[in-house]
């Protein structure tokens, strides 16, 4: 309690001198009640996983639209241009909806698993990401039997750890 009251005086006097050259050191301010409430909302596992699911769904939609537009057979001898357009649009819509559902489920399961594991362990680690990736990969490829589940688990865990390390380095 004694430190935080001495901090703003020192920081504000130190920032006057170096105003032009470098960024100003902001004095310490306690979080407002809205910030605390926002943090409490985002600490909730359900809210976080639903938000991740929605974002995954959006990503899946975009990817499905893009990939669906890329590969579709062009048959100009059986249909007119308008029929071709309608057919292509339906294909794209179907593929993007499937992809949206897959990615939404993947995002939801991953985020929920990571949140639950991190709350239980009370630690912020890459182990949380690996376990969550394993759960996601295993649950998504559980249809192919236990061996496929193991391979899916290992593969998705490795992928998510790599992505996490990549984002940690570049932000």
């Amino acid at each position, binding site marked *: *309690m*004694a430190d935080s009251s001495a901090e703003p005086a020192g920081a504000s006097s130190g920032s006057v001198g170096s105003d032009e050259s470098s960024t100003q050191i902001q004095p310490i301010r306690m979080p407002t009640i809205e910030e605390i409430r926002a*943090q409490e909302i985002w*600490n909730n596992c359900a809210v976080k996983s639903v938000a991740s699911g929605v974002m995954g769904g959006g990503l899946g939609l975009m990817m499905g639209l893009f990939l669906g537009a890329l590969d579709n057979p062009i048959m100009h001898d059986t249909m007119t241009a308008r029929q071709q357009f309608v057919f292509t649009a339906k294909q794209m819509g179907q593929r993007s909806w499937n992809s949206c559902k897959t990615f939404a489920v993947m995002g939801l399961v991953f985020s929920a698993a990571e*949140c639950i594991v*991190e*709350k239980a*362990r*009370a*630690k*912020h*680690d890459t182990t*949380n990401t690996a376990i969550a990736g394993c759960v996601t990969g295993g649950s998504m490829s559980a249809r192919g039997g236990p061996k496929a589940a193991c391979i899916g688990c290992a593969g998705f865990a490795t992928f998510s750890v790599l992505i996490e390390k990549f984002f*940690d380095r570049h932000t």
Partner: protein
Amino acid sequence: MASTNPFPEGIAKEQAFSMAQTEMEYRVELFNKLAQTCFNKCVDKRYKEAELNMGENSCIDRCVSKYWQVNGMVGQLLSAGKPPM
């Protein structure tokens, strides 16, 4: 004010004031020690981001709860007289 005397009898005003001062010092010391202990235990010293993430939040919850419980228990044992050995 004179009818509802908050102090027990026989305690003068200065004595009550010094007792309150001691109590306040004890509380401040408890808070500082608690914050320092739980900060050293729970927060990763690499300071990658400014906000507390979820693992640190639940660690701080558990740390404060345990510290408070231990503090209460030790206080009770000390105030009961000789500690049972």
